[in-house]
């Protein structure tokens, strides 16, 4: 239910940076659905475990579109929507490198 992961890459710069740690959990989803603006960690079949910001959700299909803040971010603009089942959790705590 709770996972600590380290961030690699800069696609969520400047809020989330390489080397930061985040705690992610599915617990928030027990009390409410995923919302645009949430930062989530999810599994992608090609890129592996990823962290991105939710841009929009499609409740009917369970699809979630994610984006990064960096212009060169690889996200739903490249690989399309991710499915709700692939979401590992929402960021509930962020520990910055400095």
């Amino acid at each position, binding site marked *: 239910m709770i996972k600590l992961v*380290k*961030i690699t890459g800069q*696609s969520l710069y400047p809020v989330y940076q390489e080397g930061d740690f985040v705690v992610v959990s599915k617990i928030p989803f027990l009390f409410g659905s995923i919302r645009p603006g949430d930062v989530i960690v999810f599994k992608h079949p090609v890129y592996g475990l*990823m962290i991105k910001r939710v841009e929009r959700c499609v409740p009917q299909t369970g699809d979630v579109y994610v984006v990064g803040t960096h212009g060169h971010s690889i996200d739903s603009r490249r690989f399309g929507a991710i499915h709700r089942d692939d979401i590992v959790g929402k960021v509930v705590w962020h520990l910055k490198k400095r």
Partner: protein
Amino acid sequence: MIYELIEKLDRRFPFERAKAHCDIPCGIYDPHHAQLAALTVIRMIDLMNELVKEHGQQDMEFHNSMARYIAVKEQHAELCKHEVRIIWGDYIKPEHVQKYPELHELTNKIMKLGSKCRQTTSRETAVELLQAVNRFAEIFWETKGIATKRAKAPYKPEEEVVYPVLS
């Protein structure tokens, strides 16, 4: 304090990585290429000086070697500028400049010195280029929280180079 604690834990028992993935070459920056290029410029000038001293007559062999040294000097002075420009343009952020106000001026100095190294055969200018790139490297590694040390390169021209101290 909490970060350092978790970082230590991570080194011992690595946590899973979540990629905030960008297009290549996102996140891959290293001033080492610029330092090597600056060293090469010095080395080429040394070789040019040696050639003039040791080669009695300016025959075809002389011109061939000299042309090759000049070509490599040109190429590496430009490469040095290119590598620094990439880090400055793609990696350096406003907060880095805020912390190191010399950054813009230093980058501009490297550009100017790189050009001067192409135009002249001044060893002093080439050493000055290396020193400026060393300072740039020092700042770069500091922004990543990585300590640096200065040591003589273990090959000619054996000038002092800034190296990151990696665990």
